[in-house]
């Protein structure tokens, strides 16, 4: 049993290199008891403190993240605060949100063995456990692979498997599906269902509810560091999607993005036509063994101009590479793209497309929000820049350092830069991954705003609710088709 007794926590401000969402992830007076073998979902808007709560349980607070902690966290009658982290590691497994940064090893099998090796389990036992896990999780094909050649969905499976090898009693999931497509999310659901069936205690912090909804025993709704609602199974069944959206939560039932009915283009649309687009990673003499599945080879794809088009794709289909090619960022792509009856060359595309990347940290360079917009304008003009900032609600932060903004604000800033660049085509790579209902709605409204400015908006996304909220056209992307 896990007990939090009147726990309050504030991060120390010297952790200011963390995103500010985490800064305000503080908790106040949390009282929570979680029975053994139950599956609890923590949810609430970004920054409400659900990740903080998980860190309190796995011991990262106070042993790694320092701050002001009051109250007591007790697991099976042992207080967490006095135990070294490796003691918690024996009992608790954690899967994190970002597939890029939770692997310590470069190959998958070492990663699976890592926890047990650290705890000094005998090699033979570890090997047989890896075999068992590979069997029950159906990941034999992923063993002995380089982490860098896996898709995000596969990485998250390995992350789940790596904690399973340690046979933890308690499993913590911190937005594990944020980077996953529908299919990979459903596979993740299978693994979680296995844990639930086996009677492990599972605690998940998530925005996306649909894939866990029927497995959950209890939902704890948080806001601003407090628990505001606590629903049991019976109460949950009575909640409709409308009730959920009023609570600021995402829908409990979400169709697969491929099932949403939207036209690819209509007869009235002016279009950008991709007659063909091919891209393969260099197949040099020395690295012939490089994975081939990233190659893109598409024909006759049409995108509507002046509309919001969703592109849905499975993890590992090369959607990011496709966006790079479309923007003209991949020099080696061989393409034949037609716009208004004339070829649309790579060089020209480079100056007409703006891409808002999945990780906006990669594209914010300067030391103030205002300057960020200024360098995007074709001619520096402060009035114009301020006007654009106003449209995305960031004027009050104009002197702030972009890296000191929260995740949602960074994204709005990137959109402001897109507007400032005065380019006609704006591409988005998974703009809503890890966003709560409110922020998702905000982004959807901004998309419509862009469309009304006459921009062509193309969004790669796996978020069905988001597609339903704002997209007008939809293309199901397959890398070879």
């Amino acid at each position, binding site marked *: 049993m896990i007990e939090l007794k009147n726990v309050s926590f504030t991060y120390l401000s010297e952790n200011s290199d963390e995103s500010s969402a985490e800064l305000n992830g503080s908790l106040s007076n949390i009282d929570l008891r979680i029975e053994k073998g139950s599956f609890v979902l923590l949810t609430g808007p970004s920054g409400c403190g659900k990740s903080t709560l998980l860190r309190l349980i*796995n011991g990262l607070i106070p042993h790694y993240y320092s701050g002001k902690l009051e109250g007591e966290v007790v697991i099976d009658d042992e207080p967490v605060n006095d135990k070294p982290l490796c003691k918690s590691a024996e009992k608790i497994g954690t899967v*994190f949100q970002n597939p890029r940064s*939770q692997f310590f090893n470069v190959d998958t099998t070492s990663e699976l063995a890592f926890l047990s090796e650290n705890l000094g389990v005998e090699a033979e036992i570890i090997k047989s456990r890896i075999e068992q896990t590979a069997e029950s999780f159906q990941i034999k094909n992923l063993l002995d692979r380089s982490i860098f050649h896996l898709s995000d969905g596969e990485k998250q499976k390995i992350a789940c498997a790596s904690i399973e090898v340690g046979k933890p009693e308690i499993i913590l999931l911190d937005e594990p599906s944020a980077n996953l497509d529908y299919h990979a999310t459903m596979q993740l659901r299978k693994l979680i269902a296995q844990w639930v069936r086996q009677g492990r205690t599972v605690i998940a912090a998530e925005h996306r509810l649909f894939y866990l909804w029927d497995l959950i025993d209890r939902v704890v709704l948080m806001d601003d560091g407090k628990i505001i609602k606590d629903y049991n199974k019976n109460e949950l069944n009575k909640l409709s999607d409308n009730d959920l959206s009023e609570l600021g939560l995402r829908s409990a039932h979400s169709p697969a993005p491929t099932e949403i009915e939207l036209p690819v283009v209509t007869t009235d649309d002016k279009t950008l036509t991709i007659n063909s687009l091919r891209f393969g990673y260099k197949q040099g003499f020395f690295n012939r063994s490089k994975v081939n599945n990233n190659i893109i080879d598409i024909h006759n794809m049409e995108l509507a101009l002046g509309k919001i088009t969703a592109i849905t794709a499975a993890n590992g289909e090369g959607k990011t590479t496709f966006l790079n090619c479309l923007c003209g960022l991949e020099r080696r792509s061989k393409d034949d793209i037609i716009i208004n009856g004339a070829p649309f060359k790579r060089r020209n595309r480079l100056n007409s497309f703006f891409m808002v990347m999945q990780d906006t940290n*990669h594209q914010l360079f300067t030391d103030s929000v205002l300057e960020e917009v200024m*360098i995007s304008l074709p001619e520096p003009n402060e009035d114009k820049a301020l006007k654009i900032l106003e449209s995305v609600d960031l004027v009050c932060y104009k002197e702030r350092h972009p890296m000191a903004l929260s995740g949602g604000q960074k994204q709005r800033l990137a959109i402001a830069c897109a507007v400032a660049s005065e380019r006609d085509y704006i591409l988005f790579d998974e703009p809503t991954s890890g966003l709560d209902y409110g922020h998702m709605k905000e982004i959807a409204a901004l998309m419509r705003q862009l469309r009304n400015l006459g921009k062509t908006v193309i969004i790669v996304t796996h978020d069905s609710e988001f597609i339903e909220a704002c997209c007008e056209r939809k293309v199901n992307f397959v890398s070879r088709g």
Partner: protein
Amino acid sequence: MLKGDYGKKSFINPITKLVLLVTLPAFLMGGLGGTDAEIFTLIFPLVSLFLLFISKNLKAGMVGLLMYIAVIIAWSVLPSGSDGIFHIILFIVVGIVTGLLPCALMSVYVISSTTASEFITGMKKLFIPDVITIPMSVIFRFFPTVKEEIQAINKAMTMRGIRFGGRNAAGILEYRLIPILMCSLKIGDELTAAALTRGLDSPRKRTNICDTRFRFQDFFLLALCFCAYLVWVLSLFGIHFGEVVKL
């Protein structure tokens, strides 16, 4: 299918790797043993090339081999009496290729063939404390990730028109640093947190599913290094290997 092929088994033991990493620069660049150890300055580059080929790192191996052959041919074909600037340049190139290059190739081999787990186990066997081992293993893990980050940032810069010849060309260097630093910090932080929830700080004796026993090739290479050091020590006492052989 599973039995026996856990992890890519390294050809040599992590400890042998560390010994080679120290020994090669000592003799090739540091010039230990002087003329007495000349024979080793020929053997060690071959060892590093051999290891690269056996670990299927063909690219680095071929580049190294070709440069090595080219330099040796150039050195023997060109008249050694020729003087002037050309000769000096050639001399420097030969120095780099025979001295620095094999050491660099050995580092490439060690980094590309050692898993974090093997590395940690090897260091623990040498009684090197965790405060040194853990940061070093994080660095190993860090390079490829940071490389991916830098590629993404470069793309973003091109896309936003910050490129040579563009209006913001001056920002090329400055603008790059901020996101690289921020992303590296964030990833380092998350990596450490993830590793700690997987028991990295455990005081217990670490086990390893990879085979880290010493095999024939380890004994052979260690013996080779030992011989090199022996020649050096003997030469300090005035016993010269070359003369011993002649006698």
